[in-house]
């Protein structure tokens, strides 16, 4: 057993001043709130940028946005959403809040490093935002930052924006590494009595495996960012071949632009799962709790998470089918990519089979979870188009790709973020989020995003290329495509503005929400069993909880209630976990 035996006797270093409690805090729960708040705020910047882009696409010329500003908005929107919002909120936010509570620990094992992690993250965000105010503005290189154009004239922000972007990413990776070492070590070393790995909630499994991916994948981005920074600042040629620009020879020689693409996607594909695996874990728990049914096929779900994690490292070049790499690689990467669909599909089946013969409560968290399944299903199935090399050839770099990745790693994970916040907000604040506002927010967000992205695939079939500031005078694009773009923009603006409902709900319910009690959803996992809600520093009072069963005992025959908390002993309610098989 890998729990610390004398953890109960360790001193707790209760924070005493306001500063040490809320600012320089080493408490994982406060750090989680800091991470999430920062991520949501910077995400709002990215949301506004996307609204501006949509105005230009849907109603060209309606706002004063030139091509420079468009490409800057496009780049910053993508980078913020993927890295500074989604990665940060799943690992730094949910990871921080839930891992210690769910495994029965008093805190992360390295609280000081955990605190540093947040402050490095904040600095990375500030450096990123500072690029809006430097000469030339933020980089407009596209979020993939492909060299040579990322650092040469002719791309917006090639003066200072790109430098700040690379520096910011490097700082972010330092932050993510400090946080990640904590999450992994905490899961491995700080689980409480009886909390075996196979009794952990899937949330912990998802975040745990995602963190391992992050620790292995981020270094590829780190080195490629550093190398590009050297290419930009001191004239090395890691990614820069003999080249010229606007009629003049540049001082670069012998580098390889495609090397950057390999490094970037060696990070970039696992990154998709760094976002997706926590979402898989969280949504599994939400579905099980609100369907009042044990998660179907728990062990298969764990192995699916692990095998998706492993496979995610051998599929990266499916982003590069038309990059000019050796075309024979396509056979290998198409095969690995489609293989990854099998464990992913199994997860979808098991979520559905958890609903089957359940006792489904359509609470707001559950609504978001079910919406996630639909959205993720569409995004996953369209991934089978793009993963299958020859099908990708006509569709790559078109709006089909835009629609696909927004469905699968934009909207789907965000729906889980919303569902999870509605689910755990009562534990964090002691109050329920407002149900009516939540449902309104849900319907607009779910149906709106579907209306935005489902038809967008068809612009891709048409062949409309992505990353175009304007589509004038292309005869193969019919006028009706512009009408569809206008429709998408209108829906996008409505969905964007409706997010104010969510922010309002967060603020309003903090003061006026109905008191929730400690376990409003009647859930089994440890975070709902803390002596106080919100949990105090140290989480568990004088003694750690003792775990006797897995986290999914809902509807156990013979039990008094329809849920059996993990701390309930085998004498009170028999433990079934060893006879799951037929």
């Amino acid at each position, binding site marked *: 057993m890998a729990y610390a035996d004398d953890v109960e006797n360790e001193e707790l270093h209760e924070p005493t001043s306001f500063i040490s409690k809320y600012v320089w805090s080493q408490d994982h729960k406060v750090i989680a709130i800091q991470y999430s708040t920062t991520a949501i705020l910077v995400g709002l910047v990215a949301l506004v940028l996307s609204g501006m882009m949509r105005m230009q696409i849907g109603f060209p010329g309606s706002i004063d946005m*030139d091509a420079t500003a468009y490409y800057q908005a496009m780049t910053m929107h993508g980078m913020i959403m993927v890295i500074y919002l989604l990665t940060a909120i799943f690992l730094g936010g949910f990871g921080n809040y839930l891992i210690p509570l769910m495994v029965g620990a008093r805190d992360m094992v390295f609280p000081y490093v955990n605190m540093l992690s947040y402050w490095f993250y904040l600095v990375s965000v500030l450096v990123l935002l500072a690029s809006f105010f430097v000469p030339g503005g933020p980089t407009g290189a596209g979020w993939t930052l492909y060299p*040579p*154009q990322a650092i*040469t004239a002719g*791309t917006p922000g090639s003066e200072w924006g790109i430098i700040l972007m690379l520096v910011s990413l490097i700082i972010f990776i330092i932050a993510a590494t400090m946080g990640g070492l904590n999450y992994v070590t905490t899961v491995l070393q700080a689980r409480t009595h009886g909390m075996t790995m196979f009794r952990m909630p899937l949330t912990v499994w998802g975040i745990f495996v995602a963190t391992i991916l992050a620790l292995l994948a981020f270094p590829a981005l780190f080195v490629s960012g550093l190398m590009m920074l050297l290419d930009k600042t001191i004239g090395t040629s890691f990614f820069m*071949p*003999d*080249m*010229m*620009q606007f*009629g003049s*020879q540049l001082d670069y020689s012998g580098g*390889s632009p*495609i090397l950057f693409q390999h490094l970037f996607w060696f990070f970039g594909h696992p990154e998709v799962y760094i976002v997706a695996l926590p979402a898989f874990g969280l949504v599994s728990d939400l579905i099980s709790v609100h369907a*009042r049914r*044990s998660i*179907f*096929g*728990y062990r298969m779900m764990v192995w699916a998470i692990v095998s998706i994690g492993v496979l995610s490292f051998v599929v990266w070049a499916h982003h590069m089918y*038309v*990059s*000019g790499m050796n075309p024979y690689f396509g056979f290998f990467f*198409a095969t690995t990519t*489609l293989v990854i*669909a*099998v464990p992913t599909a199994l997860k979808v089946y098991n979520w559905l089979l958890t*609903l*089957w013969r*359940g*006792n*489904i409560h*359509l609470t707001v968290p559950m*609504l978001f979870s*079910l919406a996630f*399944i639909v959205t993720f*299903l569409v995004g996953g199935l369209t991934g*089978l188009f793009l993963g*299958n090399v*020859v*099908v990708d*050839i*006509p569709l790559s770099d*078109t709006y089909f790709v835009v629609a696909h990745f927004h469905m699968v790693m934009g909207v789907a994970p965000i729906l889980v973020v919303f569902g999870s916040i509605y689910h755990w907000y009562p534990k964090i604040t002691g109050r329920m989020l*407002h*149900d*009516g*506002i939540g449902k309104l927010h849900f319907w607009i967000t779910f149906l709106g995003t579907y209306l935005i992205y*489902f038809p967008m695939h068809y612009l891709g*079939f048409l062949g409309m290329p992505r990353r*175009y500031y304007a589509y*004038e005078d292309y*005869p193969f694009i*019919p006028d*009706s495509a512009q009408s*569809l773009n206008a429709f998408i923009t209108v829906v996008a603006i409505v969905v964007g503005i409706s997010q104010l*409902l969510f922010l309002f709900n967060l603020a*309003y319910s903090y003061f006026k929400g109905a008191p929730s009690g400690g376990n409003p959803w009647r859930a089994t996992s440890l975070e709902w069993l803390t002596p106080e809600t919100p949990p105090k520093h140290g989480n568990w009072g004088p003694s750690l909880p003792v775990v006797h069963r897995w986290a999914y005992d809902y509807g*156990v025959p013979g039990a008094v209630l329809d849920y059996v908390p993990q701390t309930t002993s085998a004498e009170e309610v028999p433990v*079934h976990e060893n006879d799951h*098989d037929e």
Partner: protein
Amino acid sequence: MFALLAKCHDKALALSNRGRIHMTFAVILVAIVIISVLFHFLSPWQATPLASNWGSIDTTITITLVITGIFFVAIVLFMAYCVYKYKAVPGRRSEYRPENKKLEWWLIGITTVAICGLLAPGLIVYNDFVHVPANAVEFEAVGEQWRWSYRLPGKDNTFGRTSVTRIDENNAFGIDPNDAAGQDDILIGGNQIHVLINQPAKALLRSKDVLHDFYVPQFRAKMDLIPGQVTYFWFTPTVLGTFDILCAEYCGIGHYNMRGQVVVDDAVSYQEWLSSQLTFADVISGGTVEGLVEQGQRLASSRGCIACHSIDGSPSLGPGWVDLYGRQETLSDGSMVEVDGPYLIESVVDPAAKIVSGYPPIMVAYELSDEQLNSLVAYIASLSSDPKNSTSIQPSTEE
């Protein structure tokens, strides 16, 4: 206002009974399935009509649509069924059955079969894609920010060696002048390439500066251009006409406007076009005696000016050159300027000094000799919408 809104919504919810939302949600899920399928068949936005041999790629898309469509419909409908059928009922409990290995293995098996059904045809067609037919005729497309030029191997069927370091005003393609194979290479500086119908074509792709991508939606196939290496793909054009070449790999601020054209000809028109093109030998020998205007024209082409400054009156990233000379322009600070020689020269050597209103300040400064600057001014001054002076290539748009 929000609070009021919320209260209204709350009351509405309280009036409806708890089971209603299950019904609503299930109906919406079914509606999503029906509308999505109908949209697929009725939508006016379908694949652009095919004009190459890659109908087999379209077939793989259709196979993928059918297989993924079945899963989409089945899964969402099953979800709708569960949401409706297993709605929360006070006092009822869910079934306690944490695992069903047999069912899970069945599902894994079915999924694997479906995946094979996608992968197998995909890889078979991809095998065709990576194997260029032996009778394919090569042409080279060269990308630079933000225009296209092309090269044919000439009579000897062999391209001359090239290097980006050899590119200068007289050698826009960077061909090695000492390589005999390069002398008869045919150079096409404009944005338009001609290819022969029903003749497999292998596109060799080269970039002078950043990544680009050669993409003709009607041909389906596409491939990136990478500075420092030559990439390729092949296709057989099957429909006569003119098709847009789009850049499909982001290449900086002019990306959306980096367009070329490929004209698919029958044998007669192709030969006619081919015979009017110049070889590398023609270009380097004919460049000795030329007027100021011709020198300026060559300079504008070789230094990439015309990527951003249109010479046919069409809108472009920077001010177009037709009828520019002598015009009064409004600058970004509101003042007026007459476009004359000194102003044009200043705009080349110090582009940021006086920006014409409505254009982004993105041009880089060029270091040119006085003679070169004068030749550019002469060329710009020669560009008039008066047809006798016009040097533009009128793009045809019929397909």
